């Protein structure tokens, strides 16, 4: 049970406070309801580029990092399809420094052409390091536009191409900042040993005077239901063939989400999972398998992925993989197997919540979904899932025409 207190300030900022008396540290986390799905389709990558620029200093505080360090803190941020999250962890005595810094850069960011040029270069190197200069690094660059035709999830968070990043102007960034970075689009989460009411007072002190803005209305195109199986083969200088199958699944708010999540654990959660036992350990068709859901707010993807073992053909490997996936329907899990994945899920939450940073970020995320309290209630939703629900969801998910398949084929020269 993760306790919390909530208050919405007059300017629309939602404040969530968690108290943990066992830690000497404090966390200040701000989650903005803005991600790469809000990018301009012609100039993708702006949400992520802005995250970089948020560390470039504000009108009144020239160096964000230096102030965090002076206070003995550490900070970072991440952007995904749906959200951008900034967090700073610092000694509890310096909690106010964290609030001061976050409030300051919510409204007074100092955007300059020079800063933008340098961060475009940094992000270009990030793109090269993560997506070009790695074996299988371009997987999501290919898979996203294969699975999505209209919805913004068709481009990756960093941007669909280096040329897109190059096109982004200071005006574009400034507009994104104005539209999405405001108290009413943000959730502030504070976790420390301080009393909840004291933290709310401090949040009021540092954020209460910021001006609220009209929030922009989001109107994103729905992805049309997929009608036929999509397949793509790429040849790369990689040591092994790899198969990735992506099935369209429901959104984060849908009731089917829980059964879908459990199916991914049944297939590949841990060493006793179906795919691992059958395809890796027994049949040795794959050297590695994985199944997971993207968990996006809008309808996401259910991914099954395997690294084909040497000496196995990819066709055969693909057939064995889909047969085992469909085994969920033809040989559904009994109570013991279902209990196992539910127990794993419950325990995993406890492990995640041993630190205040994860507690703060999770509370904010559930608040964004509608209510921070879901964080505590959600386990009950998983417990309600029965074998019938699993079979029903698997039958909807695992239709061939609902899938996009990406084959990486090892080009000859890498085999020598």
């Amino acid at each position: 049970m993760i306790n919390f207190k909530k208050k919405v300030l007059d300017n629309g900022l939602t404040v969530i406070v968690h108290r943990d008396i066992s830690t000497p540290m404090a966390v200040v986390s701000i989650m903005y309801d803005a991600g790469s799905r809000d990018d301009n389709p012609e100039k993708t990558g702006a949400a992520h580029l802005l995250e970089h620029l948020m560390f470039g200093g504000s009108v009144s505080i020239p160096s964000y990092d230096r102030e965090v360090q002076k206070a003995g803190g550490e900070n970072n941020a991440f952007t995904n399809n749906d959200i951008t999250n900034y967090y700073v962890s610092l000694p509890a005595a310096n909690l106010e420094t964290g609030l001061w810094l976050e409030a300051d850069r919510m409204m007074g960011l100092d955007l300059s052409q020079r800063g933008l040029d340098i961060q475009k270069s940094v992000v270009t190197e990030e793109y090269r390091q993560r997506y070009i200069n790695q074996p299988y690094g371009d997987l999501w660059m290919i898979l996203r536009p294969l699975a999505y035709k209209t919805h913004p999830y068709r481009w990756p968070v960093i941007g669909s191409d280096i040329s897109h990043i190059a096109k982004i102007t200071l005006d574009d960034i400034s507009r994104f900042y104005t539209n999405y970075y405001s108290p009413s689009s943000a959730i502030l989460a504070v976790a420390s040993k301080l009393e909840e009411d004291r933290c709310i007072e401090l949040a009021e002190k540092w954020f209460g005077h910021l001006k609220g803005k009209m929030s922009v209305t989001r109107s994103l195109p729905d992805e049309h239901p997929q009608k036929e199986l999509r397949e793509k083969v790429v040849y790369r200088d990689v040591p092994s063939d790899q198969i990735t199958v992506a099935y369209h699944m429901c959104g984060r708010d849908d009731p089917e989400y829980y059964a879908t999540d459990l199916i991914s654990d049944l297939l590949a959660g841990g060493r006793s999972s179906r795919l691992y036992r059958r395809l890796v350990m027994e049949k040795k068709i794959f050297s590695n398998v994985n199944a997971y859901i993207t968990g996006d707010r809008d309808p996401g993807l259910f991914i099954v992925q395997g690294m084909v073992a040497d000496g196995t053909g990819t066709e055969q490997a693909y057939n064995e993989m889909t047969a085992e996936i469909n085994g969920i329907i033809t040989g559904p899990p009994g109570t013991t197997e279902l209990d196992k994945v539910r127990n794993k899920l419950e325990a995993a939450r406890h492990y995640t919540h041993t630190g205040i940073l994860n507690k703060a970020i999770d509370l904010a995320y559930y608040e964004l979904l509608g209510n921070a309290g879901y964080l505590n209630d959600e386990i009950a939703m998983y417990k309600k899932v029965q074998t019938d629900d699993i079979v029903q969801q698997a039958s909807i998910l695992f239709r061939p025409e609902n899938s996009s398949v990406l084959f990486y084929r090892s080009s000859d020269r890498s085999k020598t």
Partner: protein
Amino acid sequence: MTYRKKPVTEKFLRPGPVKPRQIRLGNSVPVYLIRAGSQPVARIDILFRAGSWWQPKPLVASSANAMLTEGTIYHTGEEIAQKTDYFGSYINTHIDRDNAFVSIYSLTKHLESLLPLAEEIIKVPSFPERELETLLERKLQSYMIERNRVGTIAREQFSSALYGSDHPYGQILQPEHFKNVSSEDLHAFHRDFYKTGNCAVFISGSYDEDSIAGLLDRTLGGTEWLSHPEAEESMPPPFQTEKRNLLILKKDAVQSALRIGRPLFNRSHPDFPGMMVLNSILGGHFGSRLMQNIREKRGYTYGIGSVLAGLRHSGYIAVISEVGAGYRKNAVKEIYNELDRLRNKPVSKKELDLTKSLMLGEILSSFDGPFAWLESIRNLVEHDLDDGFIDILIETITGISASRLQDLAGKYLLTGDMTEVVAGQ
């Protein structure tokens, strides 16, 4: 609108007492007990002096460690996996150059069921042939992926240049090594190194100390797995540092991986804490000189940093980055410029104070939460240190002067002493 004054920053904060309670099992294995955290979970780490330093040939130490959970004389690997997964628990294995680990994550209420299983895994693994074969095939496949990465190539070549290709700290794996490991090799390694005299246990989380102490004694406290009295620490050959400038060409690489550095010493060396401060200024954090110059000012890279690594029998400092292939020459030049600056000009009071606050904050956060606290204590034991090292470190950080740092830079960061490895273009 009222003017809000910048909050006062508290400086030089120290952690409270971090010393764990220590007991010994019936067979003298030390146990470190940490109680912390809000969740009903516990983590137990069991350390063995059984890292790759000790192995008679490549892959034996890591395979023995990974195969512990693949079968015992009483249970198959699948049964072990079923049981741990059913409880939502993990029994993970992990190895580095000096040590090997078995880590258990569990809801506290399931420890009673899991520790007997851990006992089996540690004392009577069966190292089945078929599973070993699968493991080696899988390891080979991920190795083949790894060796396509410029970062991996640079890391391996750098270690080899620092310690010599015949030395366990410098050895580079080759594909043929994967064909040369047998179940008997693992049994022999296990017989010598998974023993009470090589072992320490760490537990952290929410639990009742007395019942845990009893449970640990019943499962791991017996005398049937005592170290052989005649066992001795076999010493590998001495280091053979070859200061080298290496360029490993990879034509299609859009980025080049860099490693520039030199061997130093382990954590017990009196200059180690001071070098930690110097390393922090150079490249130990986001606002460090390397990040500010090469990423934030010039945009040559997504990330650059330096590490001060403490191994049990040595240590090294290294600048690490992957830079756009066209920026490589300029980036290397700027790295050496930063070393020159540290040698030639004292660090300003402002920068030094900032580094001190930052490092003390890092120490504080390394004891934040039960798992971090366990790792910090374990880390000390791994390097034959105790919590006194934390006090020395805090004293060094708070007391160190700019001239002392300049002396250290003059002693240890000479351009002529650096080994430089580039993989890419």
